[in-house]
């Protein structure tokens, strides 16, 4: 019986020729990641275990991105704990304010994850790197601590759903619309415990940025990972950023999938996920006038340079509607600098947007854009749960950077024209 792409990467990382769905393996980790919320808990666990050093000082990464630049004293203490631990243990890659970015934008950008890697991260959106043909999945802090100590993680080999993509996206339709469309089809537990394996002729037309966005929200379907086949675009992307040789895995022709879902990309429309679940996907055929108070353009889902270009093209020379607060957050320092050099930051500021230093901040209701009772926000982020961005009675509508920018101008949820 053939293996899926995910199963092949897992087999290679536990020294087996063959693994099958349901099998529990101890896999070798190429990289273990934590942020300023999850790492303190992992450090506490690590210290309790009696270990004195991490398994590889080059393969543990801390990114202080959630409550940074620190929003309050407690958050500052957490960052300090990480900084001190990193210094004490000789962790090479500890990204602090000034060099950090939103972790899942930062690691691909720096070439820290490439094709064929196995990455665990104490952050649910670690699944983002599947876009580059890596196996990556979110875990908890204790898993992170065990990973730091041993370089291994226990994993149950997942079965898979194959998404057979054909056609090409229409103008103003992006990766975000594709994943929201998929969430509408299969629901927030539609891929529970499984891999989402993307395949088909349609993949080639998707940019790496779109693939990163789609893989990023695999967790929103309950998936263990989302993964794309490696093609010339992937190899060009990783070779420009890493000296390591990419290892390319392909699904066997006779790989077994629990389900195959065909998606013609040309039929996907601009999509918005309504409160309070990412599966509440609607297209503009079915969206009434909904006035909004805030727009957030950023996050690990849609804070890359490509996303800012899309938003700036819509906002340039226009003004954000009176009464709407539009917050733009380049996901990394490099993206910030590139956006500055391209004049995008000027476009945003002239349109009446606030531009922030990189942070996850508002996505999780941390800081830099928390919502009051009854307020509505269109966000390019990934979750719209009750209270996700602030008050339990606030509302988050998930959308692409194009819809977010168009909505900021219109003062209501609006499609990009």
């Amino acid at each position: 019986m053939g293996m899926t792409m995910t199963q092949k990467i897992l087999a290679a990382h536990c020294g087996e020729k063959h693994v099958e769905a349901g099998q529990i393996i101890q896999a070798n980790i190429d990289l273990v990641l934590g942020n300023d919320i999850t790492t303190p808990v992992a450090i506490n666990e690590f210290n309790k275990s009696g270990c004195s050093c991490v398994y590889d000082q080059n393969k543990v990464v801390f990114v202080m991105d959630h409550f940074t630049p620190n929003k309050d004293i407690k958050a500052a203490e957490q960052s300090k704990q990480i900084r001190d631990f990193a210094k004490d243990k000789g962790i090479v890659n500890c990204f602090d304010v000034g060099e950090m970015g939103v972790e899942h934008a930062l690691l691909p950008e720096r070439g820290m994850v490439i094709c064929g890697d196995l990455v665990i991260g104490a952050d649910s959106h670690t699944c983002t790197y599947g876009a580059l043909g890596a196996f990556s999945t979110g875990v908890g802090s204790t898993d992170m601590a065990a990973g730091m100590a041993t370089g291994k993680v226990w994993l149950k080999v997942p079965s898979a759903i194959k998404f057979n993509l054909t056609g090409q996206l229409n103008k103003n339709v992006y990766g975000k619309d594709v994943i929201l469309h998929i969430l509408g089809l299969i629901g927030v537990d539609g891929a529970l415990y499984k891999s989402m394996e993307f395949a088909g002729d349609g993949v080639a037309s998707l940019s790496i940025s779109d693939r990163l966005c789609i893989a990023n929200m695999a967790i929103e379907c309950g998936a263990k990972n989302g993964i794309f086949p490696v093609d010339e675009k992937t190899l060009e992307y990783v070779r420009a950023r890493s000296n390591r040789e990419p290892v390319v895995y392909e699904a066997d022709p006779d790989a077994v999938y629990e389900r195959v879902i065909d998606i013609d990309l040309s039929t996907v429309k601009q999509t918005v996920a309504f409160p309070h679940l990412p599966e509440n996907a609607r297209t503009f055929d079915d969206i009434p006038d909904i006035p909004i108070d805030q727009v957030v353009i950023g996050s690990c889902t849609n804070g890359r340079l490509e996303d800012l270009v899309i938003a700036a093209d819509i906002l340039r020379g226009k003004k954000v509607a009176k009464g709407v607060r539009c917050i733009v957050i380049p996901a990394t320092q490099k993206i910030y600098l590139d956006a500055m050099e391209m004049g995008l930051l000027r476009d945003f500021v002239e349109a009446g947007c606030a531009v922030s230093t990189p942070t996850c901040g508002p996505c999780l209701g941390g800081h830099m854009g928390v919502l009051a009772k009854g307020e509505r926000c269109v966000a390019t982020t990934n979750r719209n749960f009750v209270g996700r961005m602030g008050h339990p009675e606030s509302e988050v509508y998930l959308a692409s950077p194009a819809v977010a920018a168009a909505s900021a101008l219109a003062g209501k949820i609006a499609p990009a024209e």
Partner: protein
Amino acid sequence: MLTKGTVIKYGDNVDTDVIIPARYLNTSDEKELASHCMEDIDKTFVTRVKPGDIMVAGTNFGCGSSREHAPLAIKTSGIACVVAKSFARIFYRNAINIGLPIIECDTDAIDEGDTLEIDFDKGELKNLTKNTTSTFAPFPPFLQDIIKAGGLLKSIGGQK
């Protein structure tokens, strides 16, 4: 292992943002986290939960963020076990890794306030209020070893 307790029931897709809102994640203090457990969907939880109570829910319990603070807050609040139709995968492994017992089985016939008795070794769940018995699949041996060791880091003690 045997546990008996009163049911506190919730619906489908209880996410980690409502189990412990991110605004409280500026600490890893378990008691402080527990004092805010469930507050965005149930402000009464922290005042009515008693040690040994059993949390029961529908599908996809614990979806969303990877925050281990979520099972930690539930465990520290006194909940002895979470029973749900299905669990989101990161919550599932976090619960095992920190030693919060969880059970996957049908929960439609269990109501708020019912008294449950759970025998983890036999894989048996008795609803003493409704006088019914159902069974659930035990964990695979590897996961049982982690649970018996008292959590993941204790179970890997020999490998460090």
